[in-house]
Structures are given as C-alpha cells and as structure tokens.
C-alpha cells in the first residue's frame, strides 16, 4: 500500500503540474456585457491600473480634442473611463503593467463599450499606443501619430464607430 506521505506529495506534485501546464485562458467569462459592434477611440491619461489576475484594467481620464486637458463632466469632475484586457501576467509580456503604464502615462486605445452605459469597455482587437512621456499628441491626433510612441499588445489601430462585422473573441 502506498504510504500516506507518498500519496500526499504525489497529490501536491500533480496539482503543481496541472497548474503550470494550464494554458492561460484569454477569457473566463462571456463578452456579452460589451458591445462588439461598436468601437470608441480614446487618447487619455492613466489614473490607475487594476492589475487583476484575470483581466487587467486601465483607468484613464480621456483628453479633449485639443489634447491639452482632460474632459470634464457636468459637475466639472474629470471623466474616468476604464479599458479591460487579458490577465496581468499576459499583459505584462506586452509591457502593459503597473510600472509600464504608470499614472500620467498618455496612451491611445479603442474599446468595445459596456452595454450598461458605464464608462468602460474591452480592448478587443485594438493594440495600445503609448505616447513618449509628457508628450500629448497634437489636436485631434492620437499616440500612433506621435514620433517615438510605442505599441503594446497584438492588435491594430482602432477606428471609431460601427464595425462592419461584430467583434467576437475566440
């Protein structure tokens, strides 16, 4: 009969192997909360990162058309939006991390907005474009127009508006 000690350590070893071999899942929940037929494009300033293990979120204050100040709501408070993507470990491989996108970082992104009207969305097929430090784009432009900007994550330059084909993640 196998000793209890052997069984215990065998079980722990199996658990480790299973955990290590688990393919990091891109999505563990439905994307139905996001409107995959719409893209909203923003250039904004990072206010906070939530480096969640399952879905990293970047909270940001969108810049106005002049790209010199943040957009404010009716109460004169800065609007805050959030964009969600894959988990913190995978995002970090693309340089998307707490340190890589510190508060004050200027970046551009396209997102599929939440259907419930909250100011958040999913990154979908858009890459992240980071402006050089303290260098906002010119009026009406985005970080991908700025010399020295960097691209983070697989994806493309987003375009505002309706998509011809709804974005459905794999």
């Amino acid at each position, binding site marked *: 009969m196998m000793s209890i000690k052997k069984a215990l350590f065998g079980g722990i070893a199996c658990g480790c192997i299973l*955990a290590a071999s688990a393919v990091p899942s891109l999505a563990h929940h439905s994307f139905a909360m996001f409107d995959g037929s719409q893209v909203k494009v923003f250039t904004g*300033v990072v206010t906070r990162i*939530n*480096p969640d293990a399952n879905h990293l979120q970047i909270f940001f204050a969108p810049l106005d058309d*002049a790209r*010199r100040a943040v957009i404010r709501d009716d109460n004169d408070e800065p609007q805050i939006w959030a964009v969600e993507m894959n988990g913190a*470990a995978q995002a970090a491989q693309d340089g998307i991390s*707490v340190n890589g996108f510190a*508060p004050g970082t200027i970046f551009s992104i396209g997102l599929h907005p939440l259907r419930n009207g909250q100011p958040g969305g999913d990154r979908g097929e858009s890459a992240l474009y980071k402006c050089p430090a303290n260098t906002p784009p010119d009026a009406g432009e985005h970080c991908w127009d700025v010399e020295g900007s960097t691209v983070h994550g697989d994806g493309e330059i987003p375009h505002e508006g309706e998509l011809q084909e709804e974005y459905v993640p794999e």
Partner: protein
Amino acid sequence: MDYYSFFAAIENSAIGAFVRETLNVLPIVNVFHVLGIALVFGTIFMVDMRLIGLQSVTRPVSRVANDLLKWTWVGFALAAVTGLLMFAANATTFYVNLQFQLKMVALAFAGLNMVVFELVTARNMAIWDGERRTPPSARFAGFASITLWVLVIILGRWIGYTKGFNFSAPPAGDLDLDNLFGAISLVQTAVG
C-alpha cells in the same frame, strides 16, 4: 501616507510584481492556497465535530485535538503565506473589496473564537476531556468555528466574482488632472 498609498506600495513591490507578472506563478500560488485552506478546514472540522459531540466521541477531546491541530497549523501557514502573495499582487483592489474585508473580519472572529476556547473553555478540559457530551461552551466553540470557517471560504471564493469595474477606487499617485502638462497648459492658456 494614507492607507491606499500603503497598499499601492505593497502592490508596486518587487514581490507583488513578480507574482502577478510572471506567467503561471499566480495559478500555482492559488493551488497551494486552496490546499492550505482544505487542510485547515478538513482538520479543524473533525476537532469541532468532536467538541459538538458528533464525531470520535469515544476518544478524549485532547487526543483528537493533538492528532489533528498540528496539521491545521501547517495548513494555516500555507494559506497565510500564499494568501499574502496573492494579496500583494493586487493589494489596492483587495483593500477596497467588500468581500475581502468581510473575509478578514470572519477570519479575525475565527481566531478570537479559538483564543477564547483555549484561554477560558479549555482551562478545565481535564474534567470533561473523556466525556461524550462536552460543556455548552465547548459545543458553542465548535459550532462557531465551523460556521466562521465556512464563511471565510464562501467570502474568499466570492471575491473572484466581484472584481468588475470599480470606478469608486481613487486614482493612484499624485496625478494632478487640473494641470497635466504644466508649462504646455500654461502656454495654451496664455495664447488662448
């Protein structure tokens, strides 16, 4: 330094970054956290059932406790270390998460229940150690322990389903949204 800055510093620490940004570290830490909790609850449940009088009633309480509680502490150490690592990875979010706060409260009460049992109820254990039916205070301690640990597990698992977009969390750092680009915005104002 306010509390939020304190937890932001933990999140920004090298250990926090390592746990969340290295592929597969968090799932492995999570596995050991679950193993630790399983060990804590599995062993303490048997001791509590003896206290309540539903299990191992022919064996003295002290013997059941001595056999099992050392493994409870092994499990607790494992759960605590792995729990701290997971906390460090995303400290600012856990700090403002209601379910996490409630879990810590339940954990504190479980600890308090144990301390009261050890210091008060167990003082005269020699008298009832071998009895099938333990005193009401011992039965209460067993029942409270099971209830509180079940609560800890429920709340712990619940955390994973509560982390949507939290717009009420404050911005990190000393970002001044009124004066983002310093000189640039001053020039704009002057020109305008």
